[in-house]
């Protein structure tokens, strides 16, 4: 199909999907097929659609998404490893009208930052935690994470995760759902168009709760892939999610807000 034909075709059509303006016009540095790019996009779409760019503050973690502010075109603070939720608490407590979300991987949120995560949620601090769970330390080269599945091979569990030696995979979302401060906790994925649509809805819903000042912390976990770390093609990694990972990390809402008063 030549360029000429394209132009003719488009003239008679409407644009139904384009890149949100709240993503910087720059290519990201993530590996081919990595879910980070999709989740970045979904959050920015939600912020744009909700019209809260002028009061949104993102908190970037340490990990692959440490440079998230190069892609997310909103005010951003880059937090110390594991401390994104503490940072968010600081902002949200002094400036309750700001819309604050943290963007954290499993190493950041579920290992070094477990304490900060639990206590932020336990205080019910009213911000959104976007938790990217791909069961591995991507940035440092594919080491075992707390969320790594039993038997999974990583560079620090070369023979597969032995739970007797290395502990068990941790279901952070279920754990946090036990806390009264948790308002909305859901587990989503982005490995198919259908999943992406659902994930987008969840993120938007969580941000809407925050805009409405609803009580508590929201957490959207996105069970994602790491083709490089898992040593798979993007296609294989997405299939692996369907075949293996979602058995352990079951998708869906884990805690939903109590029925809203009429």
């Amino acid at each position: 199909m030549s360029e000429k034909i394209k132009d003719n075709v488009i003239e008679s059509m409407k644009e139904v999907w384009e890149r949100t303006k709240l993503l910087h016009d720059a290519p990201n540095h993530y590996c081919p097929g990595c879910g980070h790019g999709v989740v970045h996009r979904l959050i920015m779409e939600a912020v744009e659609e909700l019209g809260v760019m002028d009061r949104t503050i993102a908190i970037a973690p340490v990990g692959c998404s440490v440079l998230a502010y190069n892609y997310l075109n909103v005010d951003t603070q880059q937090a110390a490893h594991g401390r994104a939720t503490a940072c968010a608490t600081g902002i949200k407590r002094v400036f309750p009208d700001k819309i604050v979300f943290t963007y954290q991987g499993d190493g950041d949120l579920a290992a070094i930052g477990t304490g900060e995560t639990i206590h932020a949620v336990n205080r019910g601090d009213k911000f959104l935690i976007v938790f990217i769970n791909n069961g591995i330390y991507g940035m440092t080269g594919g080491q075992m994470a707390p969320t790594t599945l039993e038997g999974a091979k990583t560079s620090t569990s070369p023979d597969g995760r032995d739970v007797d030696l290395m502990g068990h995979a941790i279901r952070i979302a279920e754990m946090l759902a036990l806390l009264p401060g948790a308002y909305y906790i859901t587990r989503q994925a982005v490995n198919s168009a259908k999943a992406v649509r659902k994930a987008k809805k969840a993120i938007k819903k969580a941000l809407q709760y925050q805009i409405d000042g609803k009580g508590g912390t929201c957490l959207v976990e996105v069970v994602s892939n790491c083709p490089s770390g898992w040593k798979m093609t993007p296609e294989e990694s997405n299939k692996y999610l369907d075949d293996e990972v979602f058995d352990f990390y079951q998708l869906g809402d884990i805690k939903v807000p109590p029925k809203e008063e009429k």
Partner: protein
Amino acid sequence: MNKKQLMKGNEALAEAAIRAGLQGYFGYPITPQSELLEYMSRELHKRGGAFVQAESEIASINMVYGAAGAGARVMTSTSSPGYSLMQEGISYIACAELPCLLVNVVRGGPGLGTIQPSQGDYFQAVKGGGHGDYKLIVLAPNSVQEMADFTYIGFDLADQYRMPVLILTDGALGQMMESVVFPEYDIEKNRTNHSSWATTGRVNGREQHVITSLHLQSEDMEKQNQILQKKYRKIEENEVRFETIQTEDADFLLVAYGLSARIAHKAVNLAREEGLKVGLLRPISLYPFPYQAIEDLSAKVSGILTVEMSAGQMVEDVRLAVNGKVPVGFYGRMGGMIPQPDEILEEIKKLYSPKRRQ
């Protein structure tokens, strides 16, 4: 309104911070600074600020990072082991150039140590403390009044230079009561508007603001370091603070800061009663350190004695200032023990020589 009150040092500091327009306090209990946290928990909400008792000192300092990054006037306070825990966060704050006030009510260490007063955190306070090349402005009060006064000054300096300011005090000053008068302070006039760089949301669609300490390109990281170093040179030029007591005719000099300076002052009085012409120089800003003032005085005295509640930390800076011109002795107690005036007098007598250099 500004009447004399009898207050604990910790409480005076807390009250001063609130009067200086504090918007957020984040802290964790540790003796001997807990009164500060407790005072904030009672007062700050009532007076328009946010108070959070964090789950750790690590969380506290990162809450400070977040709120300071969003442009708020914020602080935390702790004591030695807690201050060690905060070092990573302070390094981030220094690099990201965020204004905030830190308070370390020092206790005896190392390790869990003791809850009694100490000055064993001097190195950590003035040489950086965490990783990388950075400094904090460090102010050392020696009375309850100064605990309050330096809080106002600390916030203003933090805003002016966009950096953390540390009030380095100790358990005794935190716990003891003295009279204090809170000065008039115009919050609106003194609090800086940080909207040109703070993360507030992209108001009116303005350009994105980013708070980060990450510069992956070495060239960029060096550039950021140069910015910091330039700032530190400016501070060294403009913000040196010290006090001299009876140095005009002194032929022997004591150098001490904080609580030790109060004790050394008494030792000066005792020495003078015995006819020994002893003076005292008290560094008030520990960074920037009054190198020049000490160097100038060292040209006139026959010897110097540094007194600290440590194994000898500030004495290294005194020696740098003196640069071998006169002998610099040291007397210190450690681990929560406090030097007594008569002990200091004994040390003075060992080193004293009436020959005044001219």
